[in-house]
């Protein structure tokens, strides 16, 4: 479908719509013609019926006329008898002719025709003849009415009428059948028109939609891509979905866009290459303008830019060579000047150092002589202090001896206290044994009082007084026991206190003994010190003499150093002048070097 051309698409679309309409029209025409047929058949039946009615009418007219003549004998009644008979025959003939397509009906009507022809030509004639023959005789009508001719005629005509009635019935049945068919046809026609119409409309809309899609979709894609391309988007492409003219246009468009893009890219590449080369040249040249001559020019080639690059490269090489030479010369000058300046400075520094050294020596000498005199004074003081120390030490020795004596006394006293405490402890033990005895006595007394009480009780009334005494004795014994216990407790406390005192005294006397030993040691050391101090005095005298000799020597050194100092000062002055000249040379060389060094020549 997609590969059909637009023309074919349009032909197929509209052609199918026309075909559907044609089909509908054919169906409708067919139905119409069947309706028309049905109508014709209706009309035909109606005609047959009308003819049959006319035959009836004519036969009835003939009967009425004949009956009138028979009754009255008046000839006017039968004046048009022949004419009516002719009409009757004519109508029945027409009816026979009309029913030629229906054999049964035709047969019936032919029989009726034969009967009616006989009836009209024979029977009616005979009746009329017979009445005419009777004339004006009385009861002619009755005679005729009773005659067989009349009855025969009536039978024939009724048979004919019955036949015709049958035919009429048949025709009406056919008519009903046909009208029912026609109604059915009509309704089917209606349905066809409505259904077909809707089908046609729906199909047409579908086809139109499909057509629009097939044609308008690719067209809008094409338009959008064109506008993107127009807006500068060279990557715009169209998806080729069909093989028709639009598909072809899309393919061509895609090819055109590809070529356009390629052309643009080529142009851009050329421009970029040119710019890059110019940029490289510019970088190197601007570096050179800032003093950097180390840049290499990489742009070469046969074109204008390439030749320009090569020329610049040659120029830079020459310039670099020149500057290199200048820089080397400058450095050499600077180095020489610096060396000279350094040696001059060193000499100057040496001179200054010499001057300083001589000054220092001078001041040191002065200090030595002043120190010596101070030392002299100090030595005198020291001698006096040594004498004083000797006296103080001998005094301290005496004091220490006295202290030693006191300590000895204290030791003796402590020993005697200890002995007394021991005696006290022994006494306490004695008291303890006495207390034991007292306790025993109290116990015995207790038992004694108990027994006394028992005896008194046994003695009865006589021992009553004795019993009281016994109780009292027991009470006393108990009290004694309690007191003894108390004394025992106190004695125990006393004994523990005494032993604590003894221990304390032992510790105390031990400490005193140690102190005495220490005091003796101090005394011995003091004696040693005193001997040493007494030996010091003659040594001090020897020192004093040596110092006086030193002071005189220092004065002589000081004078010599003054002379040396003056000479050194003069040397320093001349060295300073030399240094100044070298400095100026150094500045000049530095200027040259700095102005050249703004150019970098080595990579």
């Amino acid at each position, binding site marked *: 479908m997609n590969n059909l051309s637009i023309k074919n698409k349009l032909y197929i679309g509209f052609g199918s719509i026309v075909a559907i309409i044609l089909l509908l029209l054919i169906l409708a025409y067919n139905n119409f013609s069947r309706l028309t047929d049905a109508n014709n058949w209706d009309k035909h039946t109606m005609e047959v019926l009308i003819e049959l009615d006319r035959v009836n009418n004519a036969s009835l007219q003939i009967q009425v006329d004949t009956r009138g003549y028979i009754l009255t004998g008046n000839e006017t009644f039968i004046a048009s008898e022949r004419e009516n008979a002719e009409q009757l025959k004519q109508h029945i003939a027409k009816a026979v002719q009309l029913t030629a397509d229906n054999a049964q009906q035709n047969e019936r009507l032919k029989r009726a025709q034969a009967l009616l022809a006989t009836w009209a030509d024979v029977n009616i004639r005979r009746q009329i003849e017979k009445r005419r023959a009777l004339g004006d005789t009385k009861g002619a009508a009755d005679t005729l009415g009773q005659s067989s001719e009349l009855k025969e005629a009536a039978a024939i005509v009724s048979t004919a009428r019955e036949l015709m009635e049958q035919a009429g019935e048949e025709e009406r049945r056919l008519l009903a059948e046909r009208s029912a068919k026609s109604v059915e046809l009509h309704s089917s026609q209606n349905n066809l028109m409505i259904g077909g119409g809707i089908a046609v409309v729906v199909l047409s809309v579908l086809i139109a939609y499909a057509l629009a899609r097939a044609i308008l979709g690719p067209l809008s894609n094409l338009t959008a891509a064109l506008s993107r391309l127009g807006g500068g988007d060279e990557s715009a492409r169209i998806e080729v979905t069909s093989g028709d003219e639009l598909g072809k246009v899309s393919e061509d468009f895609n090819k055109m866009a590809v070529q356009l893009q390629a052309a643009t890219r080529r142009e851009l590449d050329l421009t970029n290459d040119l710019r890059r080369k110019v940029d490289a040249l510019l970088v190197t040249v601007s570096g050179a303008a800032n003093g950097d001559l180390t840049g290499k020019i990489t742009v070469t080639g046969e074109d204008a830019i390439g030749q320009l690059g090569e020329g610049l490269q040659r120029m830079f090489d020459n310039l670099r060579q020149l500057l290199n030479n200048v820089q080397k010369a400058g450095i050499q000058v600077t180095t020489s000047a610096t060396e000279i300046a350094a040696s001059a400075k060193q000499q100057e520094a040496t001179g200054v150092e010499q001057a300083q050294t001589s000054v220092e020596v001078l001041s040191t000498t002065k200090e030595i002589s002043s120190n010596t005199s101070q030392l002299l004074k100090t030595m005198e003081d020291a001698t006096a202090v040594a004498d004083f120390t000797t006296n103080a030490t001998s005094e301290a020795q005496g004091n220490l001896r006295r202290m030693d004596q006191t300590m000895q006394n204290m030791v003796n006293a402590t020993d005697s206290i200890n002995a007394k405490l021991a005696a006290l402890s022994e006494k306490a033990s004695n008291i303890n044994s006495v207390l034991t005895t007292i*306790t025993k006595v109290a*116990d*015995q007394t*207790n*038992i004694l009082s*108990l*027994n006394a*009480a*028992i*005896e008194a*009780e*046994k003695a009865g009334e006589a021992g009553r007084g004795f019993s009281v005494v016994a*109780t009292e004795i*027991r009470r006393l014994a108990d009290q004694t026991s309690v007191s003894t216990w108390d004394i025992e407790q106190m004695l125990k406390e006393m004994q523990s206190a005494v032993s604590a005192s003894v221990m304390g005294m032992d510790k105390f006397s031990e400490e005193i003994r140690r102190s005495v030993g220490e005091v003796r040691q101090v005394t011995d050391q003091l004696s040693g010190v005193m001997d040493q101090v007494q030996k010091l005095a003659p040594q001090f005298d020897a020192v004093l003499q040596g110092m006086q000799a030193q002071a005189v020597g220092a004065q002589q050194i000081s004078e010599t150093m003054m002379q040396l100092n003056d000479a050194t000062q003069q040397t320093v002055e001349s060295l300073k002048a030399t240094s100044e000249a070298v400095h100026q040379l150094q500045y000049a060389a530095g200027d040259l070097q700095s102005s050249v060094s703004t150019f970098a020549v080595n990579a």
Partner: protein
Amino acid sequence: MKVLVFHIGPDRYGLPLRQVRRVLPLLELKGIPLAPDSVAGLMNLHGAPTPVIDLSRISGGAPSRQHFDTRIVVADYTAPDGKVHALGLMAERVQGVHDVSTQELAPSGVQAAPFLGQVAGDAKGMVQLVEVNDLLPAELRARLFPAEVEAG
């Protein structure tokens, strides 16, 4: 009636004074081998050997402790055959003679041991009388006072 009050454990008991001969301090007793536990030993009473019963022990308690007021009470023991023997009783905490009025005495109501008699209350608590004659069971009595030995 007057009683000699002593202690068995924490409780106070009384010996009727008419049965007490005298009170002695705790003497050195001679031990009697193979004798029952309740017999503390044999003492010399003016030349006559006299058995000593430990009151604490015979009441089912521990042996009497030897305090300073633990005594030996010499009592008259009347045997069922009418003979009177001297019997030593070791008692703890012999406190002295107390007067107990006969109206205050009442039966204890509990018959634990045959020698424990009536009880009387006073300010310090209750005192139970000890019947010396019921103190020895028949077997012990037979061993302590055999029939052929005459009492001193």
